[in-house]
């Protein structure tokens, strides 16, 4: 039995039934993680001792007859921009090369309380800025489906380790597509919740009004189970919604008769032939199951990309200002005075892409430019939200590709950052509008590389998105 290839919920059941212990499963995962990491480089840190200790605790609880949560004893991976107490949290940056937070993120606590077993911190684009996991201080991550290709980003490590069975599920963060796009490139499922559903406390901030933590899993059911653990109100996050959450697994097997799906043509305009073919196939399958599909136009979509890059860079320039070498992290060795220390520390500690975004963001906020850039971008944001609200009055769900192509080769897109940015068109809108979005595998291209279909829903409709994803998985998956 290839235990490592099972879903999280499948292995959890076997652990509960004592067919296999959590310690044994954890050992298998750790072995696989260590042996494959040389190639995949999905992990920055593997915490073997902590994991085995936790797994032993879970086994003891099971032996004592305690009733445990549905994912108890299951090994998982956490993106390295989410704080784990006393465990290195680097954000894949030289700036935080030695940072061990004295506190857990909210989601870390929740997963620990649910008795999941953290086996490592995953590689990512530095400070979550990127779409290919090539900007990491710790080297790029490789796509398990083809190690010459990128896994996507910024949660490239999280997607890769799930796709390579180096963990049963992973937690990522999504600011403009960073959970969905790597999920799409690696052939796994990735969900970005409605803004405010999952606490950002302990998530190292990139763009405060766009960031959300989400699960990257082998199937929709796993994603639903993880959401049941991490989606909760947190009084330490002022943007955390104080509303009740459903059991995210409840609607998984609902039928979708009468589901109205909108297809904004702007999102399909740049898609490759392969991507078009597979996404359309998935949509046909949904039609066969009773859904209706209609093409619409979302003209504001074209502005969402510019709005995204202005807003996210502006907020990032402020959020990353605290990395100054004064209190923690990297500090330059030689400097003349405080200003020189700041310059050298930040010059040496940050990678190129991070510096690029900080400069763009600082410019967009600066005196004389604020109105033309940041303020304007926020106004566009309001318009986009309004547009989406209007669409959702007539439709239940918006569908699109996740990305215009399958995973590209390492190094292929590094020379033109703006072109790289332009490909985020399909994913950024969900962050701008704060709505939930899921990426579900819907086939492979002629290069045998995975393709994902994106579904976006009204606020708080994660369970519906998971439902649709579940149907696609059951029916159309290659």
């Amino acid at each position, binding site marked *: 039995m290839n235990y490592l290839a099972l879903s999280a919920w499948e292995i959890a059941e076997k652990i509960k039934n004592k067919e296999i212990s959590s310690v044994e499963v954890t050992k298998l995962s750790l072995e696989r993680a260590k042996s494959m990491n040389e190639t995949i480089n999905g992990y920055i840190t593997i915490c073997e001792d902590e994991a085995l200790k936790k797994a032993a605790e879970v086994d003891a609880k099971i032996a004592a007859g305690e009733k445990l949560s549905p994912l108890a004893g299951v090994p998982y991976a956490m993106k390295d921009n989410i704080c784990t107490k006393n465990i290195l949290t680097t*954000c894949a940056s030289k700036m935080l090369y030695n*940072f061990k937070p004295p506190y857990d*993120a909210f989601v870390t606590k929740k997963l620990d309380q649910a008795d999941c077993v953290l086996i490592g911190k995953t590689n990512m684009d530095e400070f979550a800025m990127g779409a290919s996991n090539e900007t990491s201080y710790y080297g790029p991550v490789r796509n398990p489906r083809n190690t010459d290709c990128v896994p996507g980003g910024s949660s490239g490590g999280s997607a890769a380790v799930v796709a390579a069975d180096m963990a049963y599920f992973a937690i990522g963060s999504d600011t403009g597509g960073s959970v969905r796009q790597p999920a799409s490139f690696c052939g796994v499922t990735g969900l970005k919740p409605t803004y405010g559903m999952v606490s*950002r406390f302990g998530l190292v901030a990139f763009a405060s009004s766009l960031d959300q933590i989400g699960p990257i899993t082998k199937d929709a059911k796993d994603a639903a189970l993880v959401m049941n653990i991490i989606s909760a109100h947190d009084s330490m*996050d002022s943007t955390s919604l104080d509303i009740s959450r459903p059991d995210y697994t409840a609607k998984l097997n609902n039928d979708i008769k009468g589901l109205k799906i909108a297809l904004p043509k702007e999102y399909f305009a740049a898609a490759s032939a392969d991507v078009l073919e597979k996404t359309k196939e998935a949509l046909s399958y949904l039609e066969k199951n009773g859904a209706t599909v209609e093409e619409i136009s979302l003209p504001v979509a074209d502005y969402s990309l510019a709005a995204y890059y202005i807003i996210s860079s502006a907020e990032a320039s*402020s959020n990353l200002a605290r990395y*100054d070498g004064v209190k923690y992290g990297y500090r330059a060795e030689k400097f003349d005075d*405080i200003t020189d220390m700041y310059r050298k520390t930040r010059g040496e500690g940050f990678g190129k892409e991070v510096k690029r975004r900080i400069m763009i963001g600082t410019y967009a906020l600066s005196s004389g430019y604020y109105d033309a850039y940041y303020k304007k971008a926020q106004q566009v944001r309001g318009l986009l939200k309004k547009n989406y609200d209007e669409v959702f009055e007539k439709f239940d769900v918006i569908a699109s590709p996740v990305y215009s192509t399958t995973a590209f080769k390492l190094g292929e897109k590094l020379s033109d950052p703006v072109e790289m940015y332009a490909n985020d068109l399909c994913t950024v809108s969900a962050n701008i509008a704060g709505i939930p979005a899921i990426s579900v595998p819907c086939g492979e291209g002629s290069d045998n590389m995975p393709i994902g279909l994106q579904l976006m829903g009204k606020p708080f409709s994660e369970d519906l998105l998971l439902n649709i994803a579940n149907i696609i998985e059951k029916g159309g998956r290659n």
Partner: protein
Amino acid sequence: MRYEPVIGIEVHAELSTETKIYCGCKNKFGGEINSHCCPVCTGMPGSLPVLNGKVVDYAIKAGLAMDCDITRSSKQDRKNYFYPDLPKAYQISQFDLPLCVNGGIDIVVDGQKKRIGVTRIHIEEDAGKSIHDAVEGKTLLDYNRCGVPLIEIVSEPDMRSSADAREYLDTLKAILEYIGVSDCKMQEGSLRCDVNVSLRPEGQKEFGVRTEMKNVNTFSGAIKGIEYEIKRQTEILENGGIIEQETRRWDDASGTSLPLRSKEEAHDYRYFPEPDLMPIVISEEHIKEIGDTIPELPHVKKQRYIESLGLPEYDAGQLTQTKIIADFFENVMSYGVEAKPASNWIMGDVWGMMNERYLTMETLPFTAEMLAKMIKRIADGTISNTAAKQVLEAMFENAKDPDLIIDELGLKQVNDEGAIIAIIDEVLAANPQSVEDFKNGKQQVVGFLVGQVMRASKGKANPQTVNQLIKDALLKL
């Protein structure tokens, strides 16, 4: 050419809430370095702010007490700059939508009433402290003060002299202290001010170029700084020069101000709305609730003491300088003591003995009720004024009830006329020469004879009664 000074002042006051503005750390002065901090107020990666509602309430209270309009929906903004004592490299403040606007404070200078406008009051977090001289060649950082809640009170440039400024600051401090939102201890840094000074030719409408002066740590420093700046700018203008718009640093030791930074070096703070916090929405009810908790304010109280209680302006000013003093005074009166004797005793012997013993109003060992009792025992003739001072001393020593003290020390006055007459007769009999002198017109011997009676009675005879009766007795002889 005569120049008119135009002065505006920005006051930062630390609010006396239990906890800090965005986290649960204790809001306390002092304490071991870096002991009142947490990941939130030290801006560690992944930390997020959560607004302390009490801070908003205190700010609203200050706004209402200074006659401001309260903004029903306001927001917080990030003010971005790099400095080692600012852990997030931005301060959460309020930029263009402050909590309170368009208010004012009434002051009285040289008998003239004047209104100084308050442009705005907003909330923000304090930064940490840089310690420059503890270790050679290094600066140490203490983050205890990070996240301490502040209100910034900005005045209109309505002041025209250092006297105006003095009155404004004293009144503002008294208001904040009265409503209980700040302990206003300048020596602990809970009240700081920046002073803006410009000059314009008398009669001109437009303002001149202004300079901003920082690092003013005392009110007297503010006054000296203003006067220095007026003099400095006058000299420049009279010599045909122009004033540079700049920020200067007041150096109390040398009594001068020094340039800190020029307009070109001014920071671009790149303000933008704080995305981690929700808008502050305030209901009418809530404003009313807070308004209902505002006590009679110091300048109103002072006027009432003058007009209704008939106290002189000086006394009224002294008794209203802090709420604890005013409350004590009113408390004493509430037990049946008249305003004049209450104020005399408090401002005189109570404060005198209090200062001798290095005590404060907060640490007075006796209650207002006890003081009232003591004063009433004088009024009802039980003890003399002199004896009362002894009683007060004893109250400071051991906080006993005045009646107990009077008994223990045997201070009861002898009021019985019969007993006094008996002593008078003895004294007159023993001092025939004095009686002769009196008959011959020497009025001053009365004093000597009264003294003798007091001595014979061991100080217990009621001196007023003795005076009265001795005159009667002498006239009969």
